[in-house]
């Protein structure tokens, strides 16, 4: 039995030993306080690596092709960021670039690196700064929201011009989906604690 403090309401409680894939809720405010130990990092690591590959593809091949009055224009994901920058909208440009491309990529690379290191037997304590950095940047990562934004923009513009989704769009969709499945339910801060050899006397 371990003593644990609920991060939401602050109630201190004893934590029974949990089976893998089970989670414990706070007795008072019903928020999640702990998860069962992660036995294998194979599945989340595979999903994150796959997401990273699709992330790289989505950024390098055509995203949407647009045809209007004989003009054909091919766009990449990054075109939105550069167009805003050219328009002197630096704040919006940086915001869009960070939340749609940079932070998700950084997040996935960090998560992959962390899991690889854990599997190679690096102790959780030494990886803690990385996991804290991951938790800090997590709210700035919104690939799913970006995908819905792309859908709305495409529908709006379809009245005006002919839009053809490029292979990059499908890659971005795959990336967003794998990101949600791979990282969405992964509590790396908790995983790191599980991999640390337990000290006695606490």
């Amino acid at each position, binding site marked *: 039995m*371990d*003593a*644990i*403090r*609920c*991060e*939401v*309401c*602050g*109630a*201190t409680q004893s*934590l029974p030993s949990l089976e893998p894939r089970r989670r414990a809720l706070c007795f*008072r*405010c*019903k*928020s999640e306080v702990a998860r069962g130990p992660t036995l294998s990092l194979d599945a989340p690591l595979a999903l994150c690596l796959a997401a990273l590959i699709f992330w790289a593809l989505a950024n390098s091949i055509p995203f*949407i092709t*647009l045809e*209007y*009055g004989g*003009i054909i*224009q091919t*766009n990449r994901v990054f*075109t*939105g*960021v*550069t*167009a*805003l920058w050219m*328009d002197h*909208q630096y*704040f*919006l*440009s940086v*915001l*869009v670039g960070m*939340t*749609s491309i940079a932070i998700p990529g950084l997040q996935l690379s960090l998560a992959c690196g962390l899991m690889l290191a854990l599997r190679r037997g690096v102790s959780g*304590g030494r990886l*803690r700064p990385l996991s804290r950095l991951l938790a800090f940047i997590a*709210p700035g990562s*919104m690939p799913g*929201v*970006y995908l*819905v*934004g*792309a*859908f*709305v*923009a495409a*529908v*709006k*513009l379809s*009245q*005006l*011009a002919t*839009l053809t989704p490029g292979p990059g769009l499908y890659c971005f969709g795959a990336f967003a989906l794998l990101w949600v499945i791979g990282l969405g339910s992964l509590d790396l*801060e908790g995983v790191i*604690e599980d991999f640390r050899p337990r000290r006695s006397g*606490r």
Partner: protein
Amino acid sequence: MKRVICPRCGGVCGVPEEARKRLLCPGCKAPLTENSTPQNSISRVWALLIAAAILYVPANLLPIFDMELLGRPSSDTILGGIADLFGSGMWFVGAIVFLASIVIPLLKILGLGFLLISTSRLGSVQARLASTRLYRAIESIGPWSMIDVFVVSLTISLVQFGRLASFSPGPGAACFAMVVILTILAARSFDPHTLWAIPEEN
């Protein structure tokens, strides 16, 4: 000295009675959040929330798009864009944008305001549970209001037709992006401990 339990490792830490700074657990270096005083958190959330509420007005009144179609200049506010979508029969997309751009920011501002006002008056466990649930909901829907910012960025990058048409983001777009960021920061600054700080009525 008083003793607190580290939320991460469960170790008992002695902390000074009147600690003003954020303290870290000596064992695992996790922040002992109890020492970020609830009063601090409440005034910070109020500040961010009031700034967001003020910016919500220009975000909705000023145009988020300035466009020129075949030489005719026009502009579009958030509500105008939604009305266009509904007008041309695209109910589904219109509803997504309406939810993401109008309803969610408003719900977040009102919901957090309600939580801040009600923290000191919560008596029953049911009321606190409901408030905790409201807080978790507000925290998780945050990023979805970014949809319109992404739509602006994608639209201006897709539509670069030289003289035929040109789009550029209006002043409302930056205000709206600020509203989204400020409400996300406000939700993250809110310390849910305050909902459970006063002893329960029994």
